[in-house]
């Protein structure tokens, strides 16, 4: 987003926490974004790595120390890093994009950040409250949610700048610095080729699937909020509207009555407004995803005709009322057309059937197809990852009807495929072939709606079956009734576990997930696979 002629509002060189303000990046109704660079300072900010020189060697200036810390924290405490559907993919390309990207950036030392200023001075008190609310949403979201597909919130600072009355009291969110937004990419390059578009869309779906699995709605998904990092990986950003689904029902969230007209689903134009805002559901993001899919392959064109956003909004209404058909651009590849059409189902009810997770599964399959297509311009490493995705999808299709993508494909399943290098890169385990456990949930309510993958129906897996089953001992990946997990071995004398109806067991199965191993208590499955006792 180029900045309008208003000129910089934040003086260059201003200190914000540990950072120094640089070039302006973007501007919006909520405030301004500037580039920031870490200032060499004498206190190492609690980093154990210590050295503070502003160098850029791989051994660690302050920036590296801190950033590496952050990355490690994510991996170690497990925040949510592995809890999403991309475990294998990320791990598979460990030396490439994604997580490793952080590492490289941190080691590079001159890693820039984005400073999002949300000024409160000069605003009427109520307006300031609105902005503060938005900042609070965003920083709360950032604190609670970390994921390789979500822009990382590094810090938040409240400015105390009596010399700059305009900035005094402003909330500054310190975030990863992206290279550009998807909108900028589309404006610069026009329609994306199948391979590139597929890669970006897949990563958008990964982020969205993760958000929804956590029970959040993004609420403002659009190419401006899809950021591309220097390594080409995608981050969703701008969680100023993101809302957590209502705790009791888990089907709705409340959001201020704001949004970007081009991405609002038909029902939003008629949505009633209550004291808490408008109701939104994850299907809101699914609709927006449908629009984004179309835009990626058409250089930013909406599937709905019209010169203004209002005209396109009216076209959405016409379509939703059944008075106009959906006319998707033939430039959109076949498989994506079908996906976009599903995302753009006019009624919330029919759209709700297409969860982000389901879309992601289909996207992965499509990603595989695209990588096989001639003319794919992805670099070799990327290509390998794409192949990997394809193998996973195929293997899943063969193994089970429940296509949840984090389940590691068993060796047997893809030897017929193109996956030789996948083995070496990804799957080191040598479990007895085909041993599986199907997750069982004793709650009938959850069994009946396993497809919905409702967060309240998710089940945890332990890191260590001999340690107390506390929050620190649970892997980030959740499982649901019906999921099929490859089992490696069994531990008969783990910590006793009692399920909701009183069944007790000390047996645990070591299962493989996309992002590693974890332990499933035997009360969580009806299967008793013939696996050896763990060493």
């Amino acid at each position, binding site marked *: *987003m180029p900045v*309008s*002629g*208003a000129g910089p509002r934040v003086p260059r060189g201003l200190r914000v926490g540990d950072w120094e303000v640089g070039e302006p990046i973007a*501007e*919006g*109704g*909520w405030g301004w974004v500037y580039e920031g660079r870490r200032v060499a300072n004498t206190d190492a900010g609690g980093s154990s790595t210590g050295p503070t020189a502003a160098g850029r060697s791989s051994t660690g200036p302050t920036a590296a120390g801190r950033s590496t810390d952050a990355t490690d924290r994510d991996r170690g405490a497990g925040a949510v890093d592995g809890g999403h559907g991309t475990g294998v993919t990320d791990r598979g390309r460990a030396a490439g994009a994604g997580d490793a990207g952080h590492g490289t950036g941190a080691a590079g030392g001159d890693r820039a950040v984005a400073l999002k200023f949300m000024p409160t001075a000069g*605003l*009427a*008190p*109520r*307006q300031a*409250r*609105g902005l503060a609310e938005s900042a609070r949403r965003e920083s709360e979201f950032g604190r609670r949610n970390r994921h390789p597909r979500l822009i990382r919130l590094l810090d938040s600072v409240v400015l105390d700048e009596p010399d700059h009355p305009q900035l005094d009291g402003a909330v500054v969110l310190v975030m990863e610095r992206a290279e550009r937004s998807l*909108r900028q990419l589309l404006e610069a390059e026009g329609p994306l080729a199948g391979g590139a578009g597929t890669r970006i869309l897949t990563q958008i779906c990964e982020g969205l699937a993760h958000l929804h699995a956590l029970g959040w709605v993004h609420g*403002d998904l*659009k*190419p*401006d909020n899809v950021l591309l990092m220097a390594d080409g990986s995608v981050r969703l950003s701008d969680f*100023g*509207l993101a809302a957590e689904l209502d705790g009791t029902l888990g089907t709705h969230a409340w959001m*201020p*009555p*704001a*949004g*970007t*007209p*081009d991405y*609002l689903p038909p029902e*939003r*134009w*008629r*949505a*009633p*407004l*209550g*004291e808490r*805002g*408008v109701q939104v559901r994850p299907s809101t993001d699914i609709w927006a995803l449908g629009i984004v899919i179309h835009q990626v392959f058409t250089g930013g064109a909406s599937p709905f005709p*019209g010169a*203004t*956003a*209002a*005209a396109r*909004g*009216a*076209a*959405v*209404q*016409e379509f939703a*009322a059944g*008075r*106009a058909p959906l006319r998707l651009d033939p430039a959109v590849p076949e498989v994506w057309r079908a996906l976009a059409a599903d995302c753009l189902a006019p009624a919330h009810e029919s759209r709700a059937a297409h969860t982000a997770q389901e879309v992601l599964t289909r996207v992965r399959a499509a990603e595989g197809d695209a990588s096989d297509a001639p003319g794919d311009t992805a670099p070799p490493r990327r290509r390998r990852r794409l192949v990997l995705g394809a193998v996973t999808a195929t293997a899943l299709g063969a193994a089970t009807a429940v296509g949840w993508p984090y389940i590691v494909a068993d060796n047997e399943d893809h030897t017929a495929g193109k996956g030789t290098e996948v083995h070496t890169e990804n799957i080191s385990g040598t479990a007895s072939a085909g041993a599986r456990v199907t997750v069982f949930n004793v709650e009938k309510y959850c069994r009946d709606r396993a497809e919905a993958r409702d967060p309240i129906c998710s089940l945890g897996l332990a890191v260590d079956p001999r340690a107390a089953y506390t929050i620190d001992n649970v892997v980030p990946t959740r499982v649901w009734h019906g999921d099929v997990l490859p089992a490696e071995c069994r531990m008969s004398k783990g910590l006793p576990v009692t399920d909701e109806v009183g069944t007790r067991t000390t047996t645990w199965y070591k299962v493989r997930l996309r992002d590693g191993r974890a332990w499933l208590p035997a009360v969580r499955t009806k299967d008793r696979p013939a696996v050896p006792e763990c060493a």
Partner: protein
Amino acid sequence: MSGIVIHLPQEPAQTVRLGPGEVARFGRGSDAAPVELRLADPSVSRLAGEIRVTDEHWLLSNFSATQSYLVENPEGAGEYLRVPPRRVGAPIPFEFARVVLPTRGSGVSFHVFAPDHVYLDPSGPEGDHRGTRTLTAYSLDQTAAYFLVLVALCEPRLRDESALAVPTTPEIVERLRRHPQYGRLTARAVSAHIDYLADEKLRIVSPAEREPGRGARRNGKRETLVGVALRFGLVDERHLGLLPARTPSGAGACR
């Protein structure tokens, strides 16, 4: 984009909603020429014209071979446009419009409201307005009478005089009496503006309404309207300047 609302004031009053792409014909009507909007006046032709909703506005077609129709903006200080005979699809730019068909008497008229008109966010930066900006989904015309009524409704809470009181309709009429443009709003007009805000612009659901069997709907509506407008910054302190000065000594400022 919820379309437009057409209101025929004659007895019995008729309200018709049209969504984008929908069409309604108007005229005296007959078996051969059925109309959706029946205007029972002998001097109106059987099929007098057509209204078609497109984008966030609407188009007026004049099927008469001899008569021009007038479209007035009731809030526009005499603003109007003339749709000549046989004109097809004249775009009407007003959020509020009164369509007048000439008759031997005082004329036949009906109202058309287009609540979907979009306004840029008042808090956004000027210039550089791109289509992808995040907007408040409920855009209000800050020069419209309904906005003035909304500010008057919110005034006690904006001035922190009372966290609870919401002015009554007569109080608002009195409050706006010295306004240069809208000083002659009647109680009925004020009520109509409140209904328009609640039903068409903000689509308020009052808490009482969500519980079936409660009769407190009308009262709940005003409070909810004020609560929502303040909560989401649709009205704030800066808008108090739109209201006329409060003391009699300040009346001169209003000219």
